[in-house]
């Protein structure tokens, strides 16, 4: 479903990703690990089309389409979702209006009628339950005054609303307390189907206890230096990354 070939990415003239190859198949969960500044968020941002990053070489296709030729909103409509490492506040834009705009834009893209007001609110209610999101939060402006953990929970709520086929979770576990981590992890699993895939970026094993990865990658200094099974994550938890560095 997602195919990244020899991807080189720069920002402000500085090369951050130095030749990434990554293939995610339907139904798979890939974990992406690596120390701070390795380029994990850069990779997720490039996949969703952040305009600040320049792709200098390589390709990304999604279900056979050239992803790099698509606008961010089109990538979203095609089924890609990024749970941001740091979700922004949007004062004055209510969660309800925001979600309605997002959902109806996707429906339009798919040739469907906009959802009727009643059905939409019903859907909001159902999806809120999955991540146990308080309706006080969905009645506010997007992320405005949300705590760090509430924002992360809100990201997964939005994922539930939009039903993406490829979800990228960029450190969704950071900022979550133990209970919230369980709710979010279990919520994510409820949303999984044999057709949905995910890239889960994390520094810790704890989220992977809920979301079992099929493949684990280690990204160091803009390159994937090691790919393995779930046991690789366990090993990193024990030993850190230094033993994986190319020159060690």
């Amino acid at each position, binding site marked *: 479903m997602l195919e990244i070939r020899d991807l080189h990415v720069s920002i402000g003239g500085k090369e951050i990703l130095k030749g990434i190859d990554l293939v995610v198949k339907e139904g798979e969960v890939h974990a992406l690990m690596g120390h701070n500044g390795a380029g994990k968020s850069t990779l997720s941002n490039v996949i*969703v*089309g*952040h*305009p600040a990053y320049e792709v200098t070489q390589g390709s990304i296709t999604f279900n056979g389409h050239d992803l790099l030729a698509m*606008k*961010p*909103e089109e*990538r*979203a*409509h095609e089924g890609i*979702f*990024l749970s*941001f490492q740091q*979700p*922004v*506040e*949007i*004062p*004055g*834009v209510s969660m309800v*209006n*925001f979600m309605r*705009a*997002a*959902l109806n*834009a*996707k429906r339009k*893209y798919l040739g469907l009628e906009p959802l009727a007001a009643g059905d939409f609110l019903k859907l909001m209610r159902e999806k809120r339950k999955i991540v146990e999101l308080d309706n006080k939060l969905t009645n506010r*402006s*997007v992320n405005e005054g949300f705590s760090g953990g509430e924002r992360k929970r809100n990201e997964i709520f*939005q994922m539930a609303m*939009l039903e993406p086929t490829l979800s990228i979770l960029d450190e969704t576990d950071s900022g979550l307390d133990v209970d919230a981590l369980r709710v979010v992890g279990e919520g994510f699993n409820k949303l999984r189907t044999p057709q949905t895939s995910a890239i889960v970026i994390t520094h810790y094993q704890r989220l992977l206890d809920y979301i079992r990865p099929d493949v684990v990658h280690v990204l160091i200094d803009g390159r994937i230096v090691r790919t393995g099974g779930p046991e690789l994550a366990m090993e990193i938890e024990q030993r850190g990354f230094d033993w994986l560095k190319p020159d060690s």
Partner: protein
Amino acid sequence: MLDTHSAPALNALRTQAFEDFRRQGFPSRKVERYRYTDVAAAFAPDYGVNLRGLSIPVNPYEAFRCDVPNLSTSLYFVANDRFYDTMPRGGETSIKKRPALPEGVIIDSLARVALERPELVAPYYGRLARSSKDAINALNTMLAQDGVFIYVPRHTVVPRPIQVVNILRADVPLMANRRMLIVLEEGAQLQLLVCDHTMDDHDFLATQVVEAFVGEDAHLEFHELEETHPTNHRFSNTYADLSAHSVATLGCITLSCGLTRNRTDVTLSGEDSEVNLIGAVVADGNQHADNNTLIDHRVPNCRSNELYKYVLDDSAVGAFAGRVLVREGAQKTSSRETNANLCAAPTARMYTQPMLEIYADDVKCSHGSTVGQLNDAALFYMRQRGVPEDEARLLLKFAFVGEVIDGIRLDALRDRLHYLVEKRFRGELGRCAGCGENVKCGER
């Protein structure tokens, strides 16, 4: 000639106003208050002035279905510079009869009340809008024939919002000079919405002077909504004087305009009084909107809040100059002034000048202004969720202005304005949409 169709209370000030105007001339941009708007250029074309009081070829009751939905207003018209009080004849229109006003409340032609009950008008007319202080005041006082007079007697609450619709309609370029005089006695309460429309795209020039006397403990909520053609020129001066324990909220929303310059001048002259000034401008094309405000804290223990926001696109020009003056002795003043602006295009220009002058030592005051673009991170976040870029921009602009609209305490007007602003940003705003769905613009 100027006197024939007016009233002695209005005529009494004309000679002095003429002298004052001759002395001052049109203000040049060297006059600080008029720095951002070229007044003389706006007055340069030849405008017709309707001094004979000829009735204009429009029946506003037929042309407008003026009703902000759910806000069951009592509706009044000012056609060009005259109070329009020919009520619709039975059966011809669906206009509802105005509900009866509480006893003693007057909403009527200024000239008529000045003629019939001069004791209600003479003590107030021209007392705040001094012609010696400002050339537009002088010009308007010299020429104004009529306008609206609103009087709410002691401890009387007007239960329904009052809506006044100004319409400009002519077959030639026209200058109209209109007045509004509002007197709220002790404990009186009034909610007033004034909509400003043009019905053709002739060159219009309207001067307007509003004087509001807010008595002790009185409450005034007064909002102006401008939706005019790009060929309109508007010079509006609003004066309010607040007595002790009174509260006034004055809103000025410019949804579409040609060249607009609004002066709002508020004097807090009684202790424990409070004024809220709110303003929003949405301008694009070559529109020009200049708001110039003064809040004068003369006595202790008063509060003022001011929030103006502009969204400018294309080659629009916006100006905001807000002066807050805290006089010696006005201790325990609390004042907050904010002007925030969005320039959606690099060719749009915004001039902002908040000014705080404090001559008392025990006060809490803040002021600030910002000019920025849309938040890129927010824009990208929304696009990632699938909201198309145009729509995301729109939602952000709409949210930006929304903060001002949320300051309006007239619920139905607030809801209506949210709707209108959204339509405005979508470019779907009919010229007269402020007054309802069924309006046919430019209808003769």
